[in-house]
């Protein structure tokens, strides 16, 4: 039964992907990309990767779509020139396809519990997590502690993208027409004229925030964690900005706070790592944070997840505001 469902979803995924590439309307392509992300998230869920599914849904279908739309508003919605060197590209792609297909033949059987992936390292995580860290969600344990250094890197990737977009979009435009100061700009007001989306949007924002906090603090027990929570909380503020306008959102949460969140989250993570050194162990060793190593690990994971959540929220919102403000400058 699940197999039929998987095949159906995977086929739909391929059709969506082909549609994305074929359409010349970029708005349609971005919408299809959002659908693609939701479909692939469902696939991840079927493949027992609940955390990844949640992230892909929040990021791919949510934040990424918003960013693409923000960029489309600043560029153009139609692709005018289409394809170049079609046959050459097809030839390159076809030969690469053959190479990858060649690789699929000796692959271990799908879902085989005896595949090499499941024999080495991974069982250790499943076996030792209850002993060393004692939280139910092994994904969070690996992410936060066993491979916490990767996650530190991940936070800094997000941070780099954030300062990158801020840097790029703080450049002065050449020959840009500046709006006269007194004029009221329509996109700054949002959807305030429309009663239904406004009421419903305002109704939903607190619930999304609440769910974001739940995902943040429930990451040790179920699917979730700092990254997903950050994306959800950012989504709540983006929704607020869409219905009530940029100005009110920035008045409620000014850019300086967002900067503080970005920097604070990254530094919090780093500080937890350095605390390991200060307390006489290695970088990112949380077990020395409390008298009991297991409690220390849990404390460390909660702290770094908070750092991740802060940086992600701050960065995604900063990027959104940077695009939106560029629209109006």
């Amino acid at each position, binding site marked *: 039964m699940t197999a039929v469902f998987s095949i159906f979803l995977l086929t739909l995924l391929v059709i969506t992907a082909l549609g994305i590439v074929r359409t010349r309307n970029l708005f349609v392509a971005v919408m299809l990309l959002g659908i693609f992300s939701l479909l692939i998230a469902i696939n991840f869920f079927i493949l027992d990767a609940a955390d990844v599914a949640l992230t892909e849904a929040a990021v791919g279908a949510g934040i990424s779509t918003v960013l693409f739309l923000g960029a489309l508003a600043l560029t153009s919605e139609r692709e005018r020139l289409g394809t170049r060197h079609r046959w050459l590209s097809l030839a390159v792609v076809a030969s690469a396809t053959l190479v990858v297909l060649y690789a699929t033949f000796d692959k271990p059987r799908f879902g085989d519990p005896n595949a*090499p992936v499941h024999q080495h390292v991974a069982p250790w995580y499943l076996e030792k997590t209850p002993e060393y860290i004692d939280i139910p969600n092994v994904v969070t344990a690996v992410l936060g502690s066993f491979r*916490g250094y*990767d996650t530190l890197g991940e936070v800094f990737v997000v941070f780099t993208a954030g300062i990158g977009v801020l840097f790029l979009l703080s450049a002065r435009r050449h020959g840009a027409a500046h709006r006269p100061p007194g004029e009221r700009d329509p996109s700054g007001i949002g959807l305030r004229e429309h009663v239904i989306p406004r009421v419903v949007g305002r109704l939903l924002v607190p619930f999304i925030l609440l769910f974001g906090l739940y995902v943040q603090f429930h990451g040790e027990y179920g699917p979730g964690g700092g990254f997903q929570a950050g994306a959800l909380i950012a989504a709540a503020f983006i929704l607020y900005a869409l219905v009530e306008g940029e100005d009110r959102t920035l008045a409620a949460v000014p850019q300086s706070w967002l900067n503080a969140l970005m920097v604070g989250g990254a530094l919090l993570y780093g500080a937890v*790592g350095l605390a390991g050194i200060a307390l006489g162990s*290695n970088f990112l060793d949380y077990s020395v944070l409390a008298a009991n190593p297991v409690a220390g690990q849990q404390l460390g994971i909660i702290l770094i997840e908070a750092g991740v959540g802060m940086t992600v929220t701050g960065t995604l919102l900063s990027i959104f505001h940077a695009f939106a403000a560029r629209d109006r400058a």
Partner: protein
Amino acid sequence: MTGLNAHLPALQVVVPLLIAPLLILLRPRGLAWAAATAASAMAFAIAVQMTVGVLDGQEYRYALGGWSAPYGIELLVDSFSALLLLIVTGASTLALLAGKASLDSEIEPRRQPLFYSAWLLALAGLAGILVAADAFNIFVFMEISSLASYVLVAGGPDRRALPAVFKYLLMGTIGATFYLIGVGLVYMMTGTLNLADMELRIHEVADQKPILVAAGFITVGLALKAAVFPLHVWLPNAYTYAPHAVSAFFAACATKVALYVLLRFDFVVFQQNLTGHEEQFAAYLMPLAVLAILFGSAVALFESNLKRLLAYSSVAQIGYILLGASLLSIGGVSASLLHMFNHALAKGALFLAVMAIATRYSQLDLQHLAGAAKRMPWTFSALVVAGLSLIGVPGTAGFISKWYLVAAALEEGVLGMALVAVIVVGSLMAVVYIWRIVEAAWFAPADKSADDPGGSVREAPAAMLAILWLAALANVYFGIATGLPRELATAAAISLMGHLP
């Protein structure tokens, strides 16, 4: 300090990484630069400290979070990584020290904290790749350094920097994703991500198809990142339109870090386990290296923009580095590693000289620089010294590595003779393109229509000139006292070749 000694591999990355966010809080003018330079200098000091340790025969291993490999992430600093760490942190520090005036004129003050923050992130990312012993961790830090370098290149004042950086971003992302696919396939067959553990476990599955395809993906992905001919197309424009200080930093080290990963992955994981892989490695890379040398030098011959000329010369120099590695002998590999160090010295100094010229001349076309040397004699003398090192004139660092390269090639018999011919032809072309700069700057009559009608052009700022000469003299110093880089390169080559069957 002794207490921290064990933590050095982690601190090497963490110090610049954690100072980067602090920078964007520093609003007053100049403070961000000072903090970035200080952080970069600290990273350099850490690299020196570890190099001293490595020369004493020590090998730094660090288990992050206290979880031992392969369950946790391990850091490893041996002579190969120490050599590259010296290059990366040194280039960053010198470029920052010399670059203040140049960057001030290119980046508006309110944007500077973001820019310097990105600089430190690029440095931390490159350092992170060099100390990592875990395949996926390399990917994460590769992305930090790549994203930060896109930001840095996009800081260039010319609008052509933007399409250049977009191409760089696309090719860089494709390269990183290819690498990720390759790592995924290897992981699928071995169940581990730690390089040393992979080396042990890949043996049983070495002849299976996913591993062969993984080797292909990893090689192509990293070759894209390293701008190996013919995948170099992103490099010339990115280097040309980047801010001058950024060109100096990246020309010295960015592609070499990707080459480092390529060599390390290939020699450690693949070559000893995959049947015949070492012959394939040589058979594929040697022609590419030869073509890179000939093509890069030939294009440089006809380039009129100074920065593009040097960028194409970099394409050729990557060819020399690969040529040495593809010889698969201790002599060849150590010559290759030595050339990484010496080319960083020469190309870094050349781009510093370009930066000094650019403080006085707004256009860097050769015809605009006619007669420039008479007005900026110190700058152009340093440029000539670095140029001689690039050519490989005896008495300079460039000579040493080419000498070892030729010696290693000659061991290969008839093929070696042909390779020596290629090296000689490449060097002769280098003579010509360096000569074109010298001719324009020293011998051509001053261009009256250039942006210097009154002849008021003066020397570059003293601080910049001092750093430039430091870099140029380093080329001479390491051309005579070859001990340090040669010792590191030889030790690294022996350890890499020790993995061969």
